[in-house]
């Protein structure tokens, strides 16, 4: 007796297949790229939208949560770009910016970068067909089996490719800004690559501009390839997304030897956010730190899933992710640290901490260690709970009303990781996002 499995496709999956069929001849890239797109789409098509029986997506059942696939966004009009240009000309707009409009690099809205840093659009790089860059853009095995990473590779419209020459140091952040001109919700597929030369040092800050970037379905992918002894600081502001939006962000990092890599992300906004991180230590004695804060309320859902692979000896990995969950929100943290047999002296620590502010929130934690080397120090921890009552009482006893004491502790909980960003302007920007989220909170109940 055998059961015949009849694959059924959801309307979203069917729509994505049709979109790929219609778009693939117009998407940028030569024969190699077309093959990459087709192979990638095959991975997606085989698996379909990930669902709860796919382990890595168990707590974010995209097949159920994303009923329909939106059409791929149309190219921005000249008028729309001009309008955005006025907004970026306003005082206070970030400098050293690279702007993507609806997933398409807009050089006219972007700034020239310091000497030693070159920027080209992904479309140009794909068309030009430089094998080394295309190999890096493929992710080189990281995330390759993930249906959403594959879908992004199949449909990547544009993005930026940043190359930082060896030894170059850029202190102020390069701002990678996702803006949108389309007024109707649509799907966007961007993929960007940052190649950091040996001994170079840069800071990259991702953010969104305007409400347009906060609706629709966004499939983003950012890949870092970091040379030996380079230093990279990265931050991502995934905030103020609007109800009904779906953001599926992939972050891939290949680290060489003696690299210092630090990444922070803030997730705060309506809709569904899934952020997946694939980091591989490929050279010895590097330090990698991944941090994140998710602030969720209403029926928001945010999932951070990371896979850290120690493939070289002597590396230090630090992963800490914090969640504040209110009302009926759902938080997901999955983290897997894999230590290969030759990655001796690995020092890996992973921690997730969630503050649950109501009885109707859900926090799903799944930390995992896979260790195949025998001389390592690895650990993980996960905590879920309320605010510390002793700390609350201490603040109240000094005169702070309960709501104010609570707000101060919540802000402190989130800000502790923000303060480690190491750049004052960015710390201020992230802190103000945290404050804005807290001040929109429904006034706290009186302590029971």
């Amino acid at each position, binding site marked *: 007796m055998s059961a015949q499995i009849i694959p059924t496709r959801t309307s979203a999956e069917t729509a994505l297949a049709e979109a790929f069929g219609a778009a693939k001849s117009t998407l940028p890239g030569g024969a190699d790229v077309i093959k990459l797109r087709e192979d990638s789409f095959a991975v997606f098509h085989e698996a379909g939208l990930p669902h709860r029986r796919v382990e890595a997506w168990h707590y974010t059942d995209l097949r159920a949560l994303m009923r329909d696939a939106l059409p791929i966004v149309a190219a921005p009009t000249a008028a729309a770009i001009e309008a955005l240009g006025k907004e970026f000309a306003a005082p206070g707009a970030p400098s050293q910016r690279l702007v993507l409009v609806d997933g398409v690099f807009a050089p006219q809205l972007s700034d020239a970068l310091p000497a030693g840093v070159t920027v080209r659009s992904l479309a140009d790089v794909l068309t030009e067909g430089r094998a080394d860059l295309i190999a890096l853009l493929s992710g080189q095995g990281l995330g390759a089996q993930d249906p959403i990473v594959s879908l992004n590779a199949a449909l990547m419209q544009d993005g930026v490719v940043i190359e930082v020459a060896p030894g170059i140091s850029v202190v102020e952040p390069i701002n990678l800004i996702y803006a949108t001109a389309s007024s109707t919700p649509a799907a966007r597929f961007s993929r960007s690559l940052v190649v950091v030369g040996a001994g170079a040092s840069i800071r990259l800050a991702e953010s969104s501009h305007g409400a347009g970037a906060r609706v629709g379905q966004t499939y983003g992918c950012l890949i870092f390839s970091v040379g030996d002894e380079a230093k990279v600081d990265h931050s991502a502001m995934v905030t103020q997304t609007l109800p009904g939006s779906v953001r599926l962000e992939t972050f891939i990092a290949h680290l060489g030897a003696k690299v210092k890599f630090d990444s922070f992300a803030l997730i705060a906004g309506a809709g569904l956010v899934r952020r997946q991180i694939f980091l591989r230590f490929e050279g010895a004695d590097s330090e990698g730190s991944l941090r994140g804060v998710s602030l969720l309320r209403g029926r928001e859902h945010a999932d951070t899933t990371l896979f850290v692979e120690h493939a070289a000896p002597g590396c230090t990995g630090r992963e800490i992710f914090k969640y504040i969950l209110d009302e009926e929100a759902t938080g997901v943290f999955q983290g897997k640290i894999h230590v290969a047999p030759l990655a001796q002296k690995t020092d890996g620590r992973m921690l997730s901490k969630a503050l649950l502010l109501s009885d109707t929130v859900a926090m799903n934690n799944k930390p995992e260690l896979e260790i195949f080397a025998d001389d390592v120090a690895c650990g993980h921890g996960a905590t879920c709970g309320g605010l510390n009552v002793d700390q609350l*009482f*201490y603040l109240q006893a000094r005169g*702070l009303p309960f709501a104010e004491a609570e707000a101060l502790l919540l802000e402190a909980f989130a800000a502790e990781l923000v303060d480690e960003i190491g750049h004052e302007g960015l710390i201020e920007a992230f802190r103000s996002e945290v404050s804005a989220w807290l001040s929109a909170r429904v006034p706290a109940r009186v302590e029971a």
Partner: protein
Amino acid sequence: MLEVKNLNVSIGGRKILNDFNLTVQDGEVAAIMGPNGTGKSTLSYVIAGRKDYTVESGEVFLNGVNLLELEPDVRAAKGLFLAFQYPLEIPGVATMTFLKAALNAQRKQRGEEELSTPDFMKRVKESADKLGIKSDMLKRALNVGFSGGEKKRMDILQMALLQPSFGILDETDSGLDIDALRVVADGVNSLRSEKRGFLVITHYQRLLDYIVPDTVHVMAQGQIVRTGGKELALELEKSGYREYVTEQAVA
């Protein structure tokens, strides 16, 4: 003036304060001494407004205001200050942010204007200098990574800034070496005035060499069992608490 009248307090059905009575006049420094587990810390927490305890009956008045009906922050604004046995570490809260928030919350509660930043900074600096608190300590997160002595000094700094009408020092000497004890005691002594009362809770006589009390009360089994002058502390140092514990047990 602090008046505690017929206070009965329990926690989880276990009686801790047993018809407790105490009056501390303005300008008076009263010490409460007693063995472990007699309810000394409970007394301080109940007066300050911690909610883990059940107040069965009784009243606590500060300058005529019944504190037991008020939230902890309102009690603080009415002039009560509790120096904690173990001041809490609060990661992520900058010390200066906290000090300013506390001071202005109390002023707001009392209907006073917020303090300007220069005024605030000046006050903090003056008090910090007296207590030997360096500016880098003020730049850190509240009490995080501070030694026991530094935490206590930070608590006394808060008292100096908030200028309460009544201070309770809960085992302020615990975890302090002799130098730190002296600094903390000097800080407290400089705040003594005709208008301000103190209740000093301690196991040991040592603290009372530095903060010399006007009255000494012995507490056992949730009650004051003996009251005397500062010489009573010396007597206790010699004889210990055994006699009081036994007396109560027999009674």
